[in-house]
């Protein structure tokens, strides 16, 4: 059997690797972006000079041939689903099963000037090359959109000492995802780095510099014009499915799949950013364009293709990011607006760069989510607490189990308990300091 995978991002590559682990099927991965798989999340570090492109590749180049995973660097122009054939720029390729891991493209909302040169998102290796190309002599960059990629791009230019203006639609950075306090913390941090953050600001238009490239922008609200040599468009991403829209594939925003990641066409699957789950598990979105879900979908679909039909189970939500110097981790369900039936315990360090938020049910006290800024918590422990519906008080007295900060770091668990005691008029005490032995025993134990 020949399995063709379009896209060599984390979803497509995970699929290929797991198919290889589970079977001897022929596997071909096609991508026009780069010959080899690299970590998209690390693009920023290449620009910042932390790493070379080479270092972002998780596997050495010989890995693919040794594991008999064929790589084709070419662009798929169309797919003939009836004949099970891919039409590439340079050739054609027949398949028995097809996995679409097409990824995303940066959103554009019809702004005048959005297709000028020196106007880019940050998603692909080519985007990075464009940023690099316009960097020499760049006096200012304007970034439109305040999500994770926006702040990454801001940090990138900032690392090269290029002044940055960020236009953010919201009242505070990423406050459609982050609760108010965390959002305020990141907003402060951005300003501490002397990044010109303009909140409640929308882009009106991008001006041509006279030679077909961006020369400045105008802000809708104020009419201010800002001169710049580069415009980063980062108002989110959407599934990269345009070239398939005219075909028989059922596409809404993304390629519609069932819980087995099957599309409406037999033997064709869609995973990762481009897939839209028609029946997502409660509390989850149909399209989740993050690294971790791409990896899970890749593994799931590989099982199904290799004969063990497996439903996609994204597990308990988790994610992470880094806002310049502030690390962020989330486990479970933490929204910007607290749900009616939930309470929240929010502790913030006096320095204003660390915080811990624990959400729990008003009724019964089961914890539902952890939001960490500048503090590392253990994935496995938090997940187990959430899965087991452990109560907030039981979590608090054992909170050291979750601490994942490096050795010698100050441990704030007692401060968090003290805050809870004050708020709830309780007398809880931390059971013990952190210890890996205790963690491992806890993880091995069944639900208390």
């Amino acid at each position, binding site marked *: 059997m020949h399995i063709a995978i379009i896209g060599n991002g984390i979803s497509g590559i995970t699929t290929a*690797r797991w198919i290889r682990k589970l079977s001897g099927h022929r596997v071909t991965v096609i991508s026009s972006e780069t010959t080899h798989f690299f970590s998209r999340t690390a693009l920023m570090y290449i620009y910042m000079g*932390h790493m070379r492109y080479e270092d972002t590749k998780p596997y050495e180049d010989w890995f693919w041939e040794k594991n008999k995973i064929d790589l084709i660097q070419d662009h798929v122009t169309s797919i003939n689903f009836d004949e099970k054939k891919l039409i590439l720029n340079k050739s054609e390729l027949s398949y028995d099963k097809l996995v679409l891991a097409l990824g995303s493209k940066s959103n554009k909302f019809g702004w005048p000037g959005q297709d000028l040169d020196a106007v880019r998102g940050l998603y692909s290796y080519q985007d990075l090359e464009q940023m690099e190309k316009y960097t020499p002599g760049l006096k200012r960059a304007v970034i439109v959109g305040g999500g994770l990629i926006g702040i990454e791009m801001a940090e990138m230019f900032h690392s090269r000492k290029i002044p940055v203006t960020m236009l953010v639609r919201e009242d505070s950075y990423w406050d459609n995802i982050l609760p108010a306090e965390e959002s305020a913390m990141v907003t402060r941090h951005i300003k501490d780095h002397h990044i010109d953050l303009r909140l409640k600001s929308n882009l009106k238009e991008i001006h041509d510099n006279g030679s077909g490239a961006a020369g400045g922008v105008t802000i809708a609200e104020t009419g201010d014009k800002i001169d710049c040599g580069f415009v980063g468009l980062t108002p989110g991403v959407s599934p990269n499915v345009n070239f398939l829209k005219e075909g028989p594939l059922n596409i809404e925003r993304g390629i519609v799949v069932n819980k087995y990641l099957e599309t409406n066409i037999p033997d064709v699957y869609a995973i990762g950013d481009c897939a839209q789950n028609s029946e997502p598990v409660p509390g989850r979105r149909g399209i989740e364009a993050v690294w971790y879900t791409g990896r899970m979908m890749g*593994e799931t679909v590989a099982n199904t293709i290799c004969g063990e039909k497996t439903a996609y189970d994204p597990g308990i939500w988790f994610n992470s990011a880094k806002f310049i*110097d502030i690390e962020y981790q989330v486990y479970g369900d933490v929204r910007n607006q607290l749900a009616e039936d939930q309470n929240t315990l929010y502790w913030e360090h006096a320095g204003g760069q660390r915080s811990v938020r624990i959400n729990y049910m008003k009724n019964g006290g089961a914890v539902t989510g952890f939001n960490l800024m500048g503090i590392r918590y253990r994935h*496995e422990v938090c997940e187990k607490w959430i899965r087991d519906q452990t109560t907030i008080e039981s979590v608090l007295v054992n909170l050291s189990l979750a601490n994942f900060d490096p050795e010698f770091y100050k441990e704030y668990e007692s401060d968090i308990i003290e805050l809870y005691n004050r708020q709830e008029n309780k007398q809880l005490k931390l059971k013990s300091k952190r210890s890996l032995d205790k963690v491992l025993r806890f993880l091995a134990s069944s639900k208390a």
Partner: protein
Amino acid sequence: MTLIQKIGIILFIIALGIFTLSLGLSEYKLTEESLEVDSDYHKTELIQLAKEQGILNKTYNSNIEFVSTFKNLLKDAQASLNAKAEAGIPEGVQEWNYKIGDWKVNDSDEYIFPNVKAASTGLLPNNSGLFFWLTIGLGILGGLLFILPSFNLIPGIKNDGIYHSSMTRGLKVNPRAFALGATIIGVLLYGVFKMNGDVFWPLLTALVIGLIYYLVFYKQGQKELTPAKSASPIHTGWLGVITGIYLIVFYILLYWVPEYLTNWVLLVDPISRSLSGNPASKWFLYGFLYCLVVAVMGIRMIAKYRHNKYQIVRTISVIFFQTCIAFLLPEILMRLNMPYYDFKNIWPLNYTFFFDYNINNLIASGGIGIFMLVWGIVLTIVGVPVITYFFGKRWYCSWVCGCGGLAETLGDPYRQLSDKSLSAWRFERWIIHGVLVFAVIMTIMVLYTYFTGSRNILFLSSDSIRGWYGFLIGAGFAGVVGTGFYPLMGNRTWCRFGCPLAAYLGLVQKYKSRFRITTNGGQCISCGNCSTYCEMGIDVRAYAQRGQDIVRSSCVGCGVCSAVCPRGVLRLENASLDIVQRTTQIRTNHIAEMSDTFIPIQ
């Protein structure tokens, strides 16, 4: 870069320039008073010949000319005394006291270096205090001016521009391989010359190198695994290359021809006299510079990682052990007429520990000497395995060790240059364990000779194996390649490929230790920061992205992988439980738990 930093770097370059040029700022005059030898017969003969040849009291402007003149004089005196000895040595005089032994002519540290130093006169020797401040003093000032302003930056990972900098981005793989090959061949050829034409050891070494190459490429199939991960930057960083050459030349001069470095030793003479009461040797100079570099660059390390308490504590620890335990304490012991002893230096890194002269010296020094002897043996046999069991090899390699201390401070800007390819890992395992075997065989032979008095085992002489080990491993590998190649192959070249103690600690760490790096569930995004900044060339990401805990014999526990991780994935930990299970199972893959049909990636 702030203005202060720019001034700092300019001052540092000026200081380094004066320091380098200062090697030529002496004149040399051999006089009866300056001549330092340990036999009156030698002295009389040398003075006699020097007079005849018109050398005595003549002023030489050039160091090179004087050294060569003095070496010839020494050879002439040796020949002349040998001839006289033919006619008969005076009654009651030992032969070694009458004739000049070969080692006194060949080994720079015996007669050549002290006499060149003693004959120095003129601008630098007469103004050594001034020059101390213009070189070392100004260098420290410049370094600190460059480093201290970075305490003003917002704390966080500061790796911006490392691969853009000519100083830190490394050089292309082919020139790097050429530099390494040329250095190895050069050292081996010099070895033949140094060992008076003995080709056995150089040939054996070349044979072993060839064997390792064969094992890696043909036995382990590395030849099929191409292309390997490249370590080349896009453009070679020439500043780094120049820095590497400077360091390499420094080590070659220091180890083998220190008579050309006498002016530097003169700069630190007063400090040595005030500490131990003795004039400075080249080792005093080296130790003094070593401590300064570890301290100043340690401050840089603390500034860079000041948000990370593990790094701060660890850096203070290496500065303390280097300056106080490795440098000051032995000097003070000397002042107290006790044996020179570095309490934290452990066999087999301290390969001279079981040499006859060291054992005899310690035994002859009474109670304190016996204590030192027992301390050294207990550290090796009990200390290493027990402490490593509890904390991993990091307790030594990145907290205590001097080589580690230099690597973690001076070497920190170069940690990203370690080769992460599988082939490098394969070379590493053969080479480092090979050196351990070499050290053990050498020590067994030396001890055999110590206890039996017999100098040969089969056809091998314990004197020659010990001499060759010191030359090849102690000087060539640890110094010239180990440190000289910081800007070319990363800061742990010696620790990773050569240190026999690291190999020993690593075996304990791998097979019986509570230490591991835990990975945080599924949070890894495979970005590669951890692997890039692993100075030991461990592909940390390969484990992290599968959610496996990491136990690797080479890991020195520096903690930088954990520090640079943008997603909080890695943590250095000690525990007694589940170490095997958690290093083999794959935990990021959420459905693996439900099915046992999965096989680990090969």
